[in-house]
């Protein structure tokens, strides 16, 4: 683990579940969730584009809801369940949503993709099955500078259409490893 070396940092004990694993960590009080995931847990799929809640690159799921992880402090994760893009693929296989992105050419540089994938996954967690226009509204919190969005909307629409059950009842990842991991 990388840790913040400045001895004057105020540290807070935090226990959280990340992608099904329990994580116990001592985090600086001012550390935001995105930096915690990236720097402390090595989950670099969560990206940073603005650190002010405007671009959506850092979107992860906390207790079933899409959250901009640059706007939340790591210590606020205590007792919560976090899901990041790294949880989506099933072993070596992309999951159906990722596969839809691939087949619809819904990414170019791919920097924004984790944000869109987690936003769409959160919609499914909430039992939502939005139509095309609604998808446009729902994903408007995530920016993309490459694709012009059309293919992103198409991929998400297709995923909802092809996985009506799976998508709407997709549970949060269960806690698979009860062994506490030092973060």
């Amino acid at each position: 683990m990388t840790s913040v070396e400045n001895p004057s940092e105020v540290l807070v004990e935090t226990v959280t579940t990340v992608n099904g694993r329990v994580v116990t960590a001592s985090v600086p009080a001012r550390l935001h969730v995105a930096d915690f995931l990236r720097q402390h847990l090595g989950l670099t799929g969560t990206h940073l584009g603005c650190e002010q809640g405007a671009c959506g690159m850092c979107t992860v799921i906390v207790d079933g809801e899409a959250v901009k992880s640059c706007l939340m402090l790591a210590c606020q994760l205590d007792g919560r369940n976090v899901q990041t893009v790294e949880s989506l693929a099933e072993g070596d296989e992309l999951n159906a949503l990722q596969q839809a992105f691939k087949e619809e050419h819904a990414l170019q540089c791919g920097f924004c993709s984790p944000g869109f994938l987690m936003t769409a996954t959160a919609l499914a967690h909430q039992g939502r099955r939005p139509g095309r226009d609604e998808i446009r509204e729902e994903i408007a919190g995530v920016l993309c500078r490459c694709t012009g969005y059309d293919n992103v909307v198409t991929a998400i629409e297709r995923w909802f259409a092809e996985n009506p059950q799976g998508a709407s009842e997709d549970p949060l990842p269960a806690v698979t490893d009860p062994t506490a991991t030092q973060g």
Partner: protein
Amino acid sequence: MTTLEDPATEADGRTAGDRRNRVIGTSQLRKEDDRLLRGDGRFTDDVDPARVLYMAVARCPYPHARIVRVDASAAAALDGVEHVLTPADIRRDTEPLTVLRPVPGAPQLPYYALAQDVATHEGQPVVSVVASSRHVAEDALELLDITYEPLPHVVDVLAALEPDAPVLHPSVLDSNLLAANSDGSGDPDARFAEADVVVEGRFRINRVTALPMETRGVVAEWRPGARELTVHCSSQVPHLIRKQLAETLRLHESDVRAVASDVGGGFGLKLGVFPEDVLACLHAIALRRPVKWSEDRAEHFRSSTHARESVHDYRIAADSTGRILAMTNVYATDIGGWNSPFGSAQLSSVVFNGPYKISDGYTERRVTLTNKTPVGAYRGYGQPEVNFAYERLMDQLARRLDLDPVELRARNMVTPRDMPWKNPVGAVYDSGDYERCLRMAADAVDWAGHRAAGRTPRADGRLVGIGFASFVERTGYASSRFLAKRGSVFGAHESVTLRANRSGGIDVYTGVSTMGQSSETAFAQVVADVFGTDYDAVRVHAGDTGASPLNTGAFASRTMIAAAGALRSAAEQLAAKTRRIAAWQLEAPVDEVEVAGSVVRVRTDHSRALPLAAVYTTAITGQGMPPEEEPGLEATAHFEPSDAAYSFGTAAAQVAVDPLTGEFDIERFVLVHDGGTVVNPTIVEGQVRGGLAQGFGAALTEELRYDPETGQLVNGSMVDYFVPTAADLPRVELLHTAVPSPVTPFGVRGVGEAGTIPPGAAVANAVCDALADHGVELSALPITPEAIWSALAGRSSGGGDPELTPTAKDLPDGGVEY
């Protein structure tokens, strides 16, 4: 003129019988996607070496200020701070930053990684600090004691040219005119004198920014014993970064390795070395520890390059039938406080006449310094600017002559019979049927029906208008010889290395980084296609100068144009040797042997075959080779296209405008586009749609605004700078033609920038068509409801500005750069 709708036609000169494994022209799934969709991409900020330290940069808060005193002692004393660099250190240890694309005739400005005596824009680096965490480094910035003496500033491009404007670089120049150049042919002044109609106007193009979602970043690591500086960076041009860093840091090029694995968008912004790259390297060299800097978005808005801002005085002369006699463009383009890594856009001069056949014309450019962030390359690089101006004037000319604007355009377009056709500044349009695209666009939006219907308001009072914008897009570069004459420090060629491996695969090494343009996929398609092997057997390794042959990089829509030729030639060399080895082993004539998927076989007897893996192993071990062959199976090839290619097309927009408020909706947007032979239809469409989204942003919502009083950027954050979201963009209908270019391999034309060019003009023309009875003419971007409302109220700005008087005849440097 051949027009080909079928991309699989013999544009590359091979016969259909050769084609065993055609993947060019098909939509293969992208090689890039799996890692990116799993969050397993390797962007610069994901690189995290052991013992890494973090850099933060103090920036000038004023648009123009003398740096009187720098006291970094308190910052250096903070717990966790490891190193501080001040302006004096930089002066001692580095050379000034170099420019990849200097403006001809412009002096080299003494641009150092940290401001020396005077900073010329808000955000210019002044001091940098390295500490144990980014938090601590930023804390240390607060402890710096820097005394500034604010100087008078100028942020308006025209005001900067006035005699009383504060001069930015008085040691080098006595005005803010960095350089000027002009070119043209014929006798435009005579044509204007004899014209029946002259339309003219001043067009203002907004300052915008490319805004890739991944900001810039750098991770520098120095191994003193090995004299090896490894620099991970978010760059479109790793080999050029290596060259520039070596020069600036006084190292040998072989001491530097630049790596840009995954790049989260570039769009022209990530070209060349920026101050922070140099700073991170210097810290790393001093500390002998890895140093990382990740640009935050506030820094990005003030220190990465901006784009586009220019003011164009355009004129068109025509006879009473609508035949254009002459066209001129005299313009001032804002370059900000310094020459940027890629210099100021020159394509505004190269394609100033658009798709129109004009023999008498000239263009004159004034590259102007202002106290703002430097302007650099951005997708389209000069072309959206002029398209807005000449396409707005085409509509004004049509109205003046009471002609159908579609007919007026058609009447003046360069035709297939004219090709190749040289424009007034010497650019050669290679091929294409421009009028066909225009007609297709007009049909798609039922232009005839709209004309017949007249301008009756809808029930809700809204007026409907349709507007067109036709364009050409210069893609790739003319020859390296030509670039050399214009002072560019890069070539027009691309280079690749192909290497067979014992598993039966082919590794492709390219210096072109992966920034969304799908080059890994397209490169593998070309290699698989030419070689005859499976697409899945080809693996592309991108963006590492330590592995790839020395090449140029990814910009100007040139990747596919230039790289395709190198890939083809390298793949042919590799295939030829593979076949010679197999022929010897199979005891068959070489002509009879072909590569087919994972085997090499005798064409007429498929039972006589060898696995490719076995043939490659033979070559790599040298065991079992034909006596006259050298061992090894590797090929490096270079390719330079003979000339630039020109993509082209027409956009049509239908809008509904409220004539009371100026609010409007884009109800339809059709783009008919020709990018030549299509290598992968899905990728081409993706590139065009992406370009359009950026084009709509620049046309409708994006504008970097500076307060003239304070010289401050007032909307330098993602919250205040409005990039379109998924909910904001109109639905776009795409139509294609596919005329192969005769000057490029496979007939491809670049497609990366087309979408950025026509949205502004098409939407503005549509709004002006709807509001024609109100006499509204738009001449500035972005097109906002407020701007339309002001025009309706007769409150258009623009009066009182100084004239850009043409001085074409006395400029020493005749000729524009390409």
